[in-house]
């Protein structure tokens, strides 16, 4: 008898709040990695979502916003399980997330099984998510890995005068994709890629590879991140090599810039590109940065790539909900239309979506300098607005080039065209 009582009371406790609020609130599921390598970025993403909601006064389209956080560990199967839980058990209205590339591809496929729910990407950067067989209910307001490389190529050719490079990058999907963005831009600006080296993810000893670097190049493109990058820089320095470097998007991220020791010093003066620049002078960015710092209570804190991505996704959701006055009826049709036609004024500049529901937006070129406290930081150098999914090519040209791989893109063909 007592068991029954406890069971029914807890069941009621679980059901009641949902039932009571269902009428006048919007329930948003947040898929975010809170375990594994990106856990720190994931918790920053959660804070940024809270910031966006509190900025909107906790309301969107005249209804109260309620969030359900579903933690993942960046593996696709956990992500699918959590997404299913959000949709089936928690009964969320739509989902914001996920965080990593392979999760994004998994969610694209899962989204096709629940066409009535909208999925707004968190910060997954996989090109395939919105390019290969995209799901009609997946919207991505951040740029993908290839777009993040755009702008850097023409910057090094025009500003630095480096026209002959060799590349060394990690041998996996993001390595290819990010390099493709750089290479397309670089080759079209007249650059030449002499040699490409691909090293397995997680390599720690690059002595043999460093020896292979040709000496008659202007710069070496480095498409590695985290510890791989640090090991490379350390050994590059020890081998006495001193060619200019060009960094891929994850080369000069916080992991490398905040590492301890001398390895990273080889990076000073290296141009790199990515989704944001911490010292971007744009008033919209500065306003966001001030709000973020006030919200975090830390005057010097810099948001992570993940945090910024989730923030923008949430802004998009709130703005679209306001436009349709919270109307999610009829398979969320109005909401979908509003998202697709959104002209989002974000801290990163104006973002619009193309026919694949993929963002067109700005890429920021930064350069690594030594900061006042001995740490390295990336300073804003240039921005390229209106970077499209096809990197300024037509969709057919982009498709003809092929999906990113070790040998794609063909530099000579791009320079000729």
């Amino acid at each position, binding site marked *: 008898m007592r068991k029954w009582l406890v069971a029914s009371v807890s069941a009621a406790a679980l059901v009641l709040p949902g039932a009571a609020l269902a009428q006048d609130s919007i329930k948003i599921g947040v898929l975010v990695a809170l375990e594994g390598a990106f856990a720190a970025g994931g918790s920053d993403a959660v804070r940024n979502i809270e910031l966006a909601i509190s900025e909107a006064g906790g309301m969107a389209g005249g209804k109260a916003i309620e969030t359900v956080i579903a933690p993942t560990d960046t593996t696709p199967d956990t992500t699918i399980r959590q997404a299913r839980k959000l949709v089936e058990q928690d009964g969320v209205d739509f989902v914001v997330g996920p965080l990593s590339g392979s999760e994004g591809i998994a969610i694209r496929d899962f989204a096709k099984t629940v066409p009535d729910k909208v999925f707004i990407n968190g910060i997954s950067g996989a090109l395939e998510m919105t390019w290969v067989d995209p799901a009609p209910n997946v919207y991505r307001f951040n740029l993908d890995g290839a777009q993040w490389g755009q702008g850097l190529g023409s910057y090094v050719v025009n500003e630095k005068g480096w026209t002959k490079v060799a590349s060394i990058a990690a041998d996996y999907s993001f390595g290819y994709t990010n390099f493709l963005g750089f290479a397309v831009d670089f080759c079209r600006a007249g650059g030449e890629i002499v040699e490409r080296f691909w090293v397995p993810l997680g390599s*720690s000893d690059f002595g043999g590879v460093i020896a292979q670097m040709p000496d008659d190049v202007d710069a070496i493109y480095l498409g590695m991140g985290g510890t791989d990058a640090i090991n490379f820089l350390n050994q590059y320095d*020890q081998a006495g090599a001193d060619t200019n470097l060009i960094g891929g998007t994850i080369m000069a991220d916080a992991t490398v810039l905040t590492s301890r020791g001398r390895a990273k010093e080889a990076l000073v003066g290296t141009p790199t590109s990515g989704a944001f620049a911490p010292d971007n002078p744009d008033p919209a960015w500065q306003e966001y940065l001030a709000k973020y710092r006030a919200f975090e209570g830390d005057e010097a804190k810099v948001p992570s790539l993940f945090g910024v991505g989730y923030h923008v996704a949430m802004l998009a959701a709130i703005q679209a909900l306001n436009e349709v006055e919270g109307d999610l009826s009829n398979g969320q049709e109005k909401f979908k239309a509003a998202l697709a036609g959104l002209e989002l004024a974000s801290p990163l500049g104006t973002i619009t979506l193309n026919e694949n529901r993929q963002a067109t937006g700005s890429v920021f070129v930064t350069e690594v300098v030594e900061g006042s406290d001995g740490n390295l930081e990336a300073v804003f150098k240039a921005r390229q607005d209106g970077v499209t999914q096809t990197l300024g090519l037509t969709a057919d040209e982009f498709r003809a080039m092929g999906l990113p791989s070790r040998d794609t893109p063909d530099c000579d063909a791009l320079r000729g065209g």
Partner: protein
Amino acid sequence: MRDFIAKRPVWSAIIALVLAVLLWLVLAPWTEAMEEAFGRKRVFLNAIFSGITLGALYFLVAAGFTLIFGLMRNVNLAHGSLYLLGGYLGFEVVERTGYWLLAFPVVFIVIAALGLLLQHQVFRRMEGEELRQTMVTIGLSIVLADIMLWIWGGQSYTILLPDWLSGPMTLPIHSGYDRSGDVAYLRYPLVRIAILVAAIVIGVAMWFTLNKSRLGMLIRAGVDDREMLTATGIRIQYVFLAVFGFGAGMAGIAGIVGGSFQSLSPGEDTRFLLASLVVVIVGGMGSIPGAAIGALVIGLADQVGLVYAPTYSVVFTFLIMAVVLAFRPQGLLGR
């Protein structure tokens, strides 16, 4: 050595031939036809040298591991944690005092003391219970990894090298011709040469201790037949303590070396545990020359693979292990 040549003349001849060809490839200038076929000589030399120095690092880690296993039949799965802890402590010492060499004795003593503590307080209580020991060492490695994450955080550390060790040096080995047609000599990171020399010195010292000293005699006897050694009245617990302390200290020193020419971060502990397991399996459990040969083979496979077949370089290491397990399960020099 002489036994081996007498027993297996064919294998000895093959090994001698391979070594001679390698030596010739390293020392002789390459003709254009050879550069055409194998790529530039500089690249080949760098791959070989990187492989040997990486092997030297693996040897430093695996030597202690194999001794502990050979003597105590104890698979210490916390060995990788001792490596990483040694590296972090080395970083702190170098950061505070500025003396790179000072880190070695300090770390050796601290990590050896930790090893003694582990042996005396933990493993002695479960002697002969392999499963329990294995479980306890896994548990310890997880606890240590989390403590290290707590103290040093998730970022990467590289240990600052002294000026006299940074930068490259020129070796008297012919590496090709420069643009003006003069003979160019191989330029190679000085620190790697230093690591190689240090590993050889340590290896030779270990070999002498094992083969020429009374302690070495006790250890060898213990590896062969522990019960009989105990029965002759030797206090085997002291021998165990000495070996465990030494093995742990070696892992700590290897941590400084690894932190100086690679980097330290969470996860390196399991990477090096795995590397030393592979090295010890290939070389033969409990054998110091076996560990040296195993480390050399794995290091060379890793680097030569990375240069000439980057896609498959990860596979080579484990392929070698699988082949050794299939045809010589006791390891190359195991008994």
